[in-house]
């Protein structure tokens, strides 16, 4: 199962802090998952915004890497500092 975490304003847009899902059929990479989530939660493409960083298992990723279906994925809007 994939654990997905939404932070800051994305948490409000997605209407949830976290969710655990099975990799949807036909979704094999992080960019495909973002596309799927953008549609499923009506995010208007927010996850594709260049200011939103993606972490897989708490490490930043920039490439469209394959998913095994057993990751923790975090979507991080720009940080606000402390």
């Amino acid at each position: 199962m994939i654990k997905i975490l939404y932070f800051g304003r994305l948490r409000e847009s997605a209407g949830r802090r976290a969710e655990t899902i099975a990799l949807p059929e036909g979704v094999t990479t992080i960019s495909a998952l973002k596309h799927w989530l953008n549609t499923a939660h009506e995010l208007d493409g927010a996850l594709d915004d260049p200011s939103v960083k993606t972490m897989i298992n708490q490490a930043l990723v920039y490439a469209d890497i394959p998913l095994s279906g057993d990751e923790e994925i975090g979507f991080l809007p720009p940080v606000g500092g402390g």
Partner: protein
Amino acid sequence: MIKIIDTPFNPVIELEAFTKANSDAGAITSFLGQVRGEAGSVHELYLEQYPGVTKAGIQDAVTKANARWTLTGVMVIHRTGAMGVGEPIVLVATAAIHRRDAFLSCDYLMDYLKTEAVFWKRQTGAHGNKWIEPRAEDYKDSDRWDTL
């Protein structure tokens, strides 16, 4: 010592404990950040962290501070959750043999915390809710360590 907590803390008690633990230090610098009321327009500040990631980032900044200055101790306490006006948000304290290392390292750590630390910050006030991002001045303050 790094603590990220979602309940209020007493900076006086924390600083007293830090001071006792660093009794060999000749100098201790501390910084306390608290929620600004903005002349009554702000009612609440809410901070969110990414457990694991936020603390690892602060730990990295503390490691860099220890590499750059000679320190005998570092303490970072950071709140998350909802805070009212005047409540402590962050307490940073650095201990060193001499004052310059304590001053500079405390300033450096606060610049990291204000710009790069993994926190999301929402202000609630007279004008509703607003997610806050670092100001241009905060980035300028943080960048100066590259040339100092």
